[in-house]
């Protein structure tokens, strides 16, 4: 079940607020609530997930009730209400992908990472989950990784291994002193 009980205080940087300001210009006056989804995407890209405090601050910014943010964040599957791995591997599990091996790919990811769906690896780097059709059936099996939602297509066990290794190496380079 989804829950919004997880919390962690967050601070919105001025650069993030500036992006919010840009987004609300797109809508007629008084219709700033339309900016909710784009803003939640921006917040999730910045923090990796949506904590209650983050959602409350969004409500405050948009001058709407916190419940109006919670009900939206819990409805749309792209929003994470729990902390995730740095890289969330989201594998399409709908029909057309399954015809060409998506279930095998998910099993392989589970074995390779050693964690079940929606769990985070101990190093905090990875989590994974099955998601529904992402409009890439011709390039199946496919997975995506946010917050840019890069697609990795025509997956094989080998290409998944390669991807995981690359992401691990990238991390090692980034943390080098």
């Amino acid at each position, binding site marked *: 079940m989804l829950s919004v009980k997880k919390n962690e205080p967050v601070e919105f940087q001025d650069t993030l607020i500036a992006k919010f300001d840009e987004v609300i210009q797109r809508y*007629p006056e008084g219709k700033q609530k339309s900016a909710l989804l784009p803003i939640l995407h921006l917040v999730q890209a910045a923090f990796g997930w949506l904590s209650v405090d983050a959602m409350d601050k969004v409500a405050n910014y948009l001058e709407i009730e916190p419940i109006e943010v919670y009900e939206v964040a819990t409805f749309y599957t792209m929003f994470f209400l729990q902390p995730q791995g740095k890289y969330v591997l989201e594998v399409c599990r709908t029909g*057309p992908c399954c015809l060409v091996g998506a279930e095998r790919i998910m099993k392989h990811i589970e074995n390779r990472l050693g964690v079940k769906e929606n769990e985070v690896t101990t190093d905090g780097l990875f989590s994974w989950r099955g998601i529904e*059709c992402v409009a890439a059936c011709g390039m199946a099996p496919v997975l995506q990784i946010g917050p840019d939602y890069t697609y990795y297509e025509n997956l094989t066990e080998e290409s998944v291994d390669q991807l995981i290794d690359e992401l691990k190496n990238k991390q090692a380079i980034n943390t080098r002193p």
Partner: protein
Amino acid sequence: MAQKLLLEHINVPGINTLEVYRQKGGYRAVEKAIKELSPEDIVEEVKKSGLRGRGGAGFPTGMKWSFLAKPEGVPRYLVCNADESEPGTFKDRYLMTHIPHALIEGMIVASYALGANTSYIYVRGEMMPQIRILERAIEEAKAAGFLGKNIFGKGYDLELYVQPGGGAYICGEETALLESLEGKRGNPRIKPPFPAVSGLYNCPTVVNNVESIAATVPVLNMGGEAYAKIGIERSTGTKLISASGNINKPGVYEITLGLPVEEFIYSDEYCGGIAGGKRLKAVVAGGSSVPILPANLILKTAKGESRLMSYESLADGGFATGTMLGSGGFVVFDEEQCIVRNTWNFTRFYHHESCGQCSPCREGTGWMEKVLHRLEHGHGNMSDIDLLVDVSKNIEGNTICPLGDAAAWPVASAIRHFRDEFEWHVLHGEEAQIRNYGLAHYADPLTLVE
């Protein structure tokens, strides 16, 4: 080579830029529309073209436009449905990725025809790369004077914005999409009032699919009458087909409506035949929501005529022996695929994506998923098969939006055409865990080429 109206220049390097797009004749339709035509003229051309909605419902686009209410002093909106979430469909993603200006040009033409001064492209949130591509294309178009204030000095203003969704199939339904665009949960609205009267922010609104909007560009360039001559019967023009599943060449193909299904599957110009030299078992021709058909019925109608890729021919025989063109999501199943497992997969999808407003859909999809799960895993009873039919009938037609029907049809059709495969799962539960049922009497009626 079939005539290409949307993808003609898809392989031209740099076609995603305004410069190359214009070199290939892009934005002629915008100039023609705003400089030479009145909004009414354009609606008339689109009506004459016979263009039908490419998102799935197939409703005539020109007629939809003519229903738009035009009260004085109230803004009107055009919203492009780029939520593309019907399983099996990926044509809009392809078009937006490679030729974003085809959509932007169509948006300008359509907005002008409808008298909209602010238009939105609602793109599913997972398509962040496509959102960036469209935003860049909009900037280019604006810099070139095709968007903004007083376009071509003709007094017409237009702003275009891209809105991300949040990952919800239901937002492909137009009123759910509008709710979502207003920053709410994607719960479909009760109709009437229709969006043409009360849509976005309670203002008159038209919601059109990406491909429908892009198709208005060739309609305007060649004229509605010329467009109507392409295709067959009331299936005019060309259609993007997303081909996936067990075929040699999955991908997006632009076909002239009326192409024989057999040619589409087996010709090297299109799907290139079944992968691995296997045989064809079944096809879902128009996205996961439309009835699945066994090989014999997808290649030929019940009357024995060649089945064509058109609204009419695919629907020939009604749901008893036919299906629908839908969104053009063409999913091909080879002889090794399990119909029960796939039906369970699709039903899990609909259960997951039901918004929960209407009990028949919210509860019914869950029941169907559970029953199909036990059939697939060898714990089903014979009575489960009729139970599924019963539940699907109680969902169909009893919900606010078509998601209920979309969930019911795949189940009902799978049982209608593949009942003995379901029965085999009941009678041979353990064996069904090890092997699939195979082709049986749905055998590919084409003789294998030696």
